[in-house]
């Protein structure tokens, strides 16, 4: 309701404030646009030495309990790291590794946690293999299977959009086991030759792979906790959308500033084009979408995990971020005129990011539909 303080407010911690500032400076320095563009054609798609610097800063452990070498904070703090990354188009296996850590915390066995979480804090890359070719955002819709045989699991099927798979020391793979969803922790060394197929992702800053599971065998103890795994999948789904919203929110900030720079300096018909009302008002709409995104985002960051309210908040954040970035980058291309149509104009980088972000665990119409179920 307008002008009324909601009972719940935005909880923005000192840690978030510090991380936001540190990450902003870090990304500004380490991810200048020349660096971003040089990575587009790089096979890895990220800079390993910078990844190690991040590990040294403790970023991969932010949301990992202290007993495993982390800082014991939450995903709300991770949001403050990811937003600046999105703004600078800085890419690394940070999101997928963070989500893999969350999956282990939510559903891993004690020995899995003890084995992998400390390594993650120190810089090990892990990745999630949850999507399939049918493209359903419901992570419980699984056609990949595991069969138990002689104390081993035999996997088959194909997973899609597995980020940075060749750099991952392990993958967390969802499969159907005895008709129910299950998660399996697959050591990278167990993958057969040719299991990883690089995908052509519209977002060239990303590295994603299809993983062909056929012929893959892992020991039975590679299973995550054998209880009902659906809540774990749901939690990954929500966490993935929170971090995705943060990354997209940053992207809006980036493309907004990039476009404003042009509109403030480019002349046509002897006028600065930013003085034209049709451009000025559109940029204002984009600003308002950006502000709305950030409000949703940091509210969601502060109440992540708080049942329905937390879920509502992050779905709003993702829906708003996703649609706003798509619009902002679409207009950025248009408003850059002929230059906007070139590969050299950064507008396309953000537009491609918007598509990737929308595809990643649900786009705006998907989340609005879910919100309808929660709110109406």
């Amino acid at each position, binding site marked *: *309701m307008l*002008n009324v303080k909601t009972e719940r407010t*935005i909880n923005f911690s000192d840690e978030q404030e510090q991380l936001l*500032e540190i990450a902003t400076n870090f990304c500004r320095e380490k991810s200048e646009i020349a660096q971003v563009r040089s990575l587009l054609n790089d096979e890895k798609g990220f800079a390993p030495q910078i990844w190690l610097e991040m590990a040294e800063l403790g970023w991969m452990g932010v949301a990992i309990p202290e007993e495993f070498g982390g800082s014991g904070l939450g995903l709300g703090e991770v949001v403050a790291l990811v937003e600046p990354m999105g703004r600078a188009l800085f890419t690394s296996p940070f999101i997928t590794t963070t989500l893999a850590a969350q999956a282990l915390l939510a559903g891993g066995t004690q020995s899995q946690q003890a084995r992998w979480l400390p390594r993650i804090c120190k810089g090990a890359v892990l990745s999630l293999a949850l999507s399939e070719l049918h493209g359903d955002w419901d992570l419980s819709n699984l056609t990949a299977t595991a069969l138990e045989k002689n104390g081993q699991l035999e996997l088959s099927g194909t997973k899609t959009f597995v980020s940075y798979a060749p750099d991952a020391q392990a993958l967390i793979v969802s499969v159907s086991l005895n008709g129910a969803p299950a998660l399996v922790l697959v050591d990278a060394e167990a993958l057969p030759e040719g299991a990883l197929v690089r995908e052509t992702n519209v977002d060239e800053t990303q590295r994603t792979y299809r993983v062909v599971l056929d012929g893959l065998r892992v020991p039975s103890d590679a299973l995550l906790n054998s209880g009902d795994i659906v809540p774990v999948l749901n939690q990954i789904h929500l966490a993935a959308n929170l971090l995705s919203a943060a990354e997209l929110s940053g992207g809006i900030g980036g493309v907004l500033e990039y476009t404003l720079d042009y509109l403030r300096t480019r002349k046509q018909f002897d006028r600065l084009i930013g003085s034209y009302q049709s451009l*000025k008002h559109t940029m204002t709409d984009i600003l308002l979408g950006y502000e*709305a995104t950030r409000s949703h985002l*940091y509210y969601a960051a502060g109440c992540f995990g708080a049942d329905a309210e937390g879920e509502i908040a992050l779905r709003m954040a993702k829906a708003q971020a996703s649609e706003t970035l798509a619009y902002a980058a679409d207009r950025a291309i248009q408003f850059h005129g002929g230059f906007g149509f070139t590969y050299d104009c950064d507008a396309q980088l953000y537009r491609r990011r918007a598509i990737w972000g929308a595809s990643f665990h649900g786009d705006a119409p998907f989340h*609005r*539909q879910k919100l309808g179920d929660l709110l109406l």
Partner: protein
Amino acid sequence: MELTEQDRNDFRAEVRLWFKENTPEDPGFVLPQTFMEVGTDQQFEFLRNWQRKVYEAGYLGMAWPVEYGGGGKPQVLQDIVTEEMIRAKTPLIMNTIGLNWAGPLILAKGSEAQKKAYIKNILTAEDIWCQGFSEPDNGSDLGNAQLKAERDGDEYVLNGSKIWTTHGSYAKYMILLARTNPQANNKYEGLSFFLSPMQVEGIKTVPIKKLTGEYGFTQTFFDDARIPADCIMGSEGEGWKMAMLTLTFERGAAGGQAGGVAILYASVQEVVDMAKKVQRNGRPAVEDPVLRDQLVRLLMDEKALSLGGIRAGMAPLDSERPLALPLSEKLQGSELQRRLADVAVQLQGANMAYYMGDSEAAENGRWQRSYFNAFSATIGGGTSQIQKNIIGERVLGLPKA
């Protein structure tokens, strides 16, 4: 006086109880949703009495100085009262131009005599105030105001016309922007600002019928009307400065308002509730998937607006463009009200054509009326188009045309 959380909670409980016990029942006639919609004497008397009652209970002007009739208490208490009024769905507090625009101005810039003369009666609703800024030919362009004020001895002689005067026919005073020097260096320097009496020969108010079919505004005509020279605020030529300061109070960009709810905003939840009751195509409107998508968009926008109010105060999340949230609140709030009323009308399906007064109109035709009334806020106080210019230029640094 530092208040503890406990103090605030105790006070909130007290206030909540008071409004529970004192909020008037449905008077049997339609009440205005905003202070600009007071269109009948019946509505006016009812709301004036309600304001006096709230004031006498100590819940209005709580942070204004005691010597002029205020409560001398911390602002936070008044804010709690406002929140509780909204929660209790009380009628609105009507003398808004006095309480929230003219009052703070007088307290900030007025002489001791002016404070003594005006402040208390604003609080009690004894004196109703109105505003004379817009003119028929200068709706958006205030700086171009042409109403003439010519000094003649101890008086100014007023000639011209003001329009969109809320409470014009009830008002005892008007905050008036007038041109004292047509030969000034520029249009702004020729303006002066008056606390003009309204019951003066030569001042006439004519009601304006609104697009809803109701009344609420007047046009005010000045025909050789003479007002005392000492009712000027500041000195000659300072009118634009005073007007701009008034607008910062009006827009809530500066504090100092007496409090009270001036506008009963509709919430999206109310639309959702109706969508569950109203049929569309033979089933509850809320089951329509396309409409659900629209409702969720509205809920998201409303939530963002509410969260924006919180975030605006949080430096680390607000440092990049600190003016973005304050300068966009009016634009977004007013446009949201228009859009949600529009959706609320549409979802009524075949029965959307029923208007206020029809026994079969959903919720007494409230939403049709709200939709039309919503334009007062998307037009008044600077149109939405002008708001976007302001944001584009002042927040985004885009060049002027």
